[in-house]
């Protein structure tokens, strides 16, 4: 009798246990991966890695990659790829350098103009994909080379022959917008905590961490906003619908074209943001900035639970995916392993994370 009622109960109405619900989240694999990688480094790395300064140290590359990875994840959920984002970092860096150094523009103009420049290239990418119906993988692969080459040519033109544009730090010095895009936040607070002995100091009394690198704050904010948009707004539904089944989405009134083009503009702008932050921090830009970042960003999104076929994934997963990447990149230098093994470790850990993630998802969603 009991079994009978259960069989007739609509499965959509059945209450799920907390664990099942949790397991169905795309980001679970990435969180599991973070735990796994943390345990690995707790066992093998110098204990400095998990002090506050060590954590800031691996969160910085994680943040830079994560800003790209979250945007890449949103685009991937929408069913497309962007392989041009790594080159876009170099290109937008050059554009930003020219605006600030060669033209001497203040940041209030240089930053929006760089963003607009990047966004327009993203829009062109999106339009070509939609107009030709070619896979975005191919279209943006062309973009990868075009932008990489354009950065080299542009740098040589604007510097008079060098492949590196210097002097950005001097050009933006004293600009009121600079602290939002470069350096460390809450420096005063950290100095005060150090003077109280709460934060470790060097022998000369300087705090080991001067503050929170701003890219980490941008990274966290972007992850939160992206997650909110995906899960709580109509736009988020449109993105999932577009990536899940374009025809069905079009038929039910989702503005598929607008969604896709906006997502391409978003990834381009994310690349430009990373470019602006890193160029201001480094004070220079060169033709090799952002090299290979397009692949790292896609790996980040996949670790974070995105499906290569679109329609499934999460921004917060990409957030944790980027943290895994940052931990592995910097973490290995804290271990005794010979650095020649670096790429083998990186590749192995990423493979492990993805396989783990995939296995859990399949078991829980019953997907074949």
């Amino acid at each position, binding site marked *: 009798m009991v079994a009978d009622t259960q069989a007739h109960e609509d499965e959509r109405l059945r209450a799920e246990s907390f664990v099942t619900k949790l397991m169905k989240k795309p980001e679970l694999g990435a969180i599991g991966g973070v735990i796994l990688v943390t345990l690995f480094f707790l066992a093998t790395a*110098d204990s400095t890695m998990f002090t506050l300064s060590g954590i800031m140290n691996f969160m910085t590359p994680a943040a*830079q990659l994560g800003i790209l990875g979250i945007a890449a994840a949103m685009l991937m959920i929408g069913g497309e790829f962007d392989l041009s984002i790594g080159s876009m970092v170099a290109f937008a860096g050059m554009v930003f350098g020219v605006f600030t150094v060669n033209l001497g523009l203040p940041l209030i103009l240089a930053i929006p103009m760089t963003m607009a420049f990047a966004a327009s290239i993203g829009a062109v990418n999106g339009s070509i994909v939609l107009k030709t119906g070619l896979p975005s993988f191919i279209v943006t692969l062309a973009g990868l080379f075009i932008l990489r080459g354009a950065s080299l040519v542009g740098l040589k033109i604007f510097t008079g022959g*060098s492949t590196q544009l210097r002097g950005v730090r001097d050009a933006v010095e004293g600009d009121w917008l600079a602290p939002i895009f470069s350096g460390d936040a809450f420096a005063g607070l950290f100095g005060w905590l150090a003077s109280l002995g709460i934060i470790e100091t060097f022998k000369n009394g300087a705090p080991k961490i001067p503050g929170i690198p701003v890219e980490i704050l941008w990274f966290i904010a972007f992850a939160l906003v992206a997650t909110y948009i995906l899960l709580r707004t109509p736009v988020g539904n449109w993105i999932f619908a577009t990536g899940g089944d374009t025809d069905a989405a079009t038929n039910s009134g989702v503005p598929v074209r607008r969604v896709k083009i906006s997502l391409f503009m978003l990834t381009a702008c994310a690349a430009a943001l990373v470019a602006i932050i890193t160029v201001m921090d*480094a004070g220079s830009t060169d033709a090799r900035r952002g090299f290979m970042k397009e692949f790292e960003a896609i790996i980040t999104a996949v670790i974070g639970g995105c499906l290569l076929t679109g329609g499934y994934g999460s921004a917060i997963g990409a957030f944790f995916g980027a943290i895994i990447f940052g931990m592995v990149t910097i973490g290995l230098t804290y271990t005794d392993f010979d650095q020649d093994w670096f790429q083998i470790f990186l590749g192995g850990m990423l493979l492990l994370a993805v396989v783990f993630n995939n296995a859990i998802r399949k078991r829980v969603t019953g997907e074949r």
Partner: protein
Amino acid sequence: MNKLLASVAMAATIAAAVPAVAADIIVVAHGQANDPFWSVVKNGVQKAGEDTGANVEFRSPETFDMVQMGQLIDAAVNQEPDGLVVSIPDGDALGPSIERAVAAGIPVISMNSGSDVAAELGVLLHVGQSEFDAGKAAGEKLAEMGGTKGICVNQEVGNVALDLRCEGFAEGFGQEVTVIPTVNDPAEVQSKVRAALESDPDVDTVLGLGASLVGEPAVAAVEALGRDDVLVASFDLSAGFLQAVADGKAAFAIDQQQFLQGYLPVAFLALHAEYGLMPGGDVPSGPNLVTQEAAGQVIELSAQGIR
């Protein structure tokens, strides 16, 4: 009584067995370990570690990536080593991280690239070769050997040290020089050099910025075209390129003796940690032009990853 004696003896043995605390020295370089040039630097670093008893670690970013390299320096500083060795291909990008190390009281020596900015960043001394002067010396020699129109093949576009070599070459050569950018791939270098020679038959001088990545493929390209009037010279050494020099297929190699760039800073810092010793100024590890007469002797050592 016997027991007491035994334990005292044991304590003495243990005390004697514990060595003096070895210095920890970290090397952060911009070149990858799969680059033949940098593997020699790494060999120098390891040999110095063995010879001095210091714990040394060699670290480098995955690609030529100044942002990541800065983060690696920060990670090293966090570990508070007894000495830090860095290469500085981009003083603007790496400056803050290096200054942080200096401020933290860590002795820093720069090597390979960065002679122009090392002193102002607080680096104790630089071990390397002046890239511009080395390029100029090569240019002068090539002009003297009869070159009239040159190409400079750059396999790591964006590295300022390499740009300086080409600039020095152009100045020393005193004739028209075109820079050819390529990637880190010998096959591509070979076809690009070949294309450059075919498209302009007047080009009779090729300067490569790396022996195995550019010098050897350039020699192969010249041979494939059957041009015996082309002078090929290259920065750095490789067994294959030295063989070409010995056989008269290439003009000369410019040796910056990068084994020393790995070895000396580590040795200096180990001595500094133990006795407070430090040389009083920069150490030029090159240039040293290896021509046909000398090439034979150097080949074997190059095959062993020492030269």
